[in-house]
């Protein structure tokens, strides 16, 4: 039996629309920061270095900062729209209110795929890292990675199932440790504390810094996204923060600032210690460059710290992905874009429990059965489609609801410049992706076209058309 009266009107998360059990509003700006940075920071620990392989050290730095501009635009746009549309689902809910149902359905799918694939990729990485720890501690056999992959997913799913506060507090702690590890490595190697170990001058000699010229910079853009991919996930916490107007912009903008610092420090440390040919080969060369940089220092405490940092960053990312994918899936179910059964909230833990449970076998199937590079490519491409939607969404938002028509928690400056910059950088990145992963890009677009046709001709008849728009907004301008 229930331990409390779940129909009580005094409980938070319940209100005039008839919600008897809603998501729990318990989070603050630090949790929003932990969600955004937690998902992304693994990209600093591994993955970004493929950009060095594509174009050399300077290409990776240019890609890092160009992608930094792209994601600063994403963070500003998201902060404004989400502090106004403060509901779970993030960009899906934004699209539903601002663009229309078909766009919303597609954006919802982008989100679920991007996060579920990234979760699977993180679980694969966690299994690999544990096998490396076994090898480093003298284990001579070949460790079976599967139980550790499965454990990573099930433990984090259990945590998410039990409640959002514990989930994101856990993320806050492990993300803070992983970020601090990067700062300590920088202080220890750059000459701030003790002598400098940096060899930039020697390692950048001749063509090493930009071996393939400007085409290499373009090719590096694809992997430049890794430094920041996922910061937009902060919006999924919108329905669970105590003060959306304050916590979402604060947490998101603090998050992108943290990542800009972490990305630049990571590039500086790794390119100053590791030759670019080894650093740029993320498969057979430097799989975890920050960890490799720590090993090159010869300091055992730094090796342990960066090893722990790598594992924590991986788990924080998987944890945030479960949180975000389940909120997006839950929102699609709540609006009947998918079966309404998924729109259930746990009466005790106040989490979207059925969505969390449903996505577990899907993540396990990808983690145990699909190659890592394909999983990551599908995740990035889904994310990129989402970023392309954002500037269009922002321009329509300002046009339909001008500044004085709705109260916004945050108003981003220089509109429409960030939207135009974001759209331009998305176009450049699509071209870069097409050069390297043209087949996957076309396959993915075909998949979303088929899904859109299914939604338009079949699923839309089940959508509760009036009930899905519950924000007390004025009519859009011109309607």
């Amino acid at each position, binding site marked *: 039996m229930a331990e409390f009266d779940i129909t009580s009107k005094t409980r938070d998360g319940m209100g005039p629309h008839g919600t*008897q059990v809603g998501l729990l509003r318990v989070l603050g700006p630090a949790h929003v920061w932990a969600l955004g940075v937690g998902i992304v920071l693994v990209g600093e620990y591994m993955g970004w270095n493929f950009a060095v392989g594509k174009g050399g050290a300077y290409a990776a730095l240019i890609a890092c900062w160009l992608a930094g501009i792209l994601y600063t635009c994403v963070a500003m746009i998201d902060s404004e729209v989400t502090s106004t549309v403060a509901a779970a689902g993030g960009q899906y809910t934004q699209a539903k209110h601002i663009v229309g149902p078909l766009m919303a359905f597609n954006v919802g799918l982008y989100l679920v795929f991007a996060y579920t694939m990234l979760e699977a990729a993180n679980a694969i990485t966690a299994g690999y890292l544990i096998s490396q720890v076994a090898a480093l501690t003298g284990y001579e056999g070949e460790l079976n990675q599967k139980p550790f992959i499965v*454990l990573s997913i099930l433990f984090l799913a259990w945590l998410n199932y039990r409640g959002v506060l514990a989930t994101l507090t856990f993320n806050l702690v492990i993300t803070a440790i992983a970020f601090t590890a990067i700062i300590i490595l920088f202080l220890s190697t750059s000459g701030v504390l003790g002598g400098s170990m940096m060899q930039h001058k020697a390692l950048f000699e001749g063509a090493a810094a930009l071996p393939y010229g400007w085409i290499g910079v373009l090719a590096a853009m694809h992997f430049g996204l890794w430094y920041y991919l996922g910061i937009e996930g902060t919006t999924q916490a919108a329905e669970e923060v105590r003060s959306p107007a304050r916590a979402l912009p604060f947490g998101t903008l603090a998050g992108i600032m943290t990542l800009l610092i972490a990305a630049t420090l990571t590039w500086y440390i790794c390119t100053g210690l590791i030759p670019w040919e080894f650093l740029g080969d993320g498969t057979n060369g430097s799989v975890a460059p920050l960890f490799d940089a720590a090993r090159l220092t010869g300091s055992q405490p730094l090796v342990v710290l960066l090893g722990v940092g790598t594992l924590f960053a991986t788990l924080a990312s998987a944890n945030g992905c479960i949180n975000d994918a389940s909120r997006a899936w839950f929102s699609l179910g709540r609006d009947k874009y998918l079966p309404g059964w998924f729109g259930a909230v746990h009466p005790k833990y106040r989490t979207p429990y059925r969505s969390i449970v449903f996505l577990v076998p899907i993540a396990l199937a990808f983690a145990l059965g699909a190659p890592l590079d394909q999983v990551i490519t599908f995740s990035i491409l889904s994310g990129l489609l989402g970023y392309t939607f954002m500037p269009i969404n922002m321009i329509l938002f300002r046009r339909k609801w001008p500044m004085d028509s709705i109260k916004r928690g945050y108003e981003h400056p220089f509109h429409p410049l960030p939207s135009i910059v974001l759209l331009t950088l998305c176009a450049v990145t699509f071209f870069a992706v097409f050069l390297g992963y043209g087949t996957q890009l076309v396959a993915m677009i075909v998949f979303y076209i088929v899904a859109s046709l299914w939604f338009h001709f079949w699923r839309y008849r089940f959508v509760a058309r009036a009930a899905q728009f519950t924000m007390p907004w004025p009519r859009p301008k011109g309607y």
Partner: protein
Amino acid sequence: MSFWNLMEYAAWGLSAVFGLYIVIDWLKTDATYDEEVLTSSREGELEAMVEERHG
């Protein structure tokens, strides 16, 4: 049996515990509560409450 072999079994065991916890609680919750209550969540409740207070 080496330490890492034991860790493999421990990981399988813990995975089973977490998985079973989730599935048992899920089935228990679905059986205990009315579907209408479980799926009663609507977006925009906070905004609606603020609107009511000011309206």
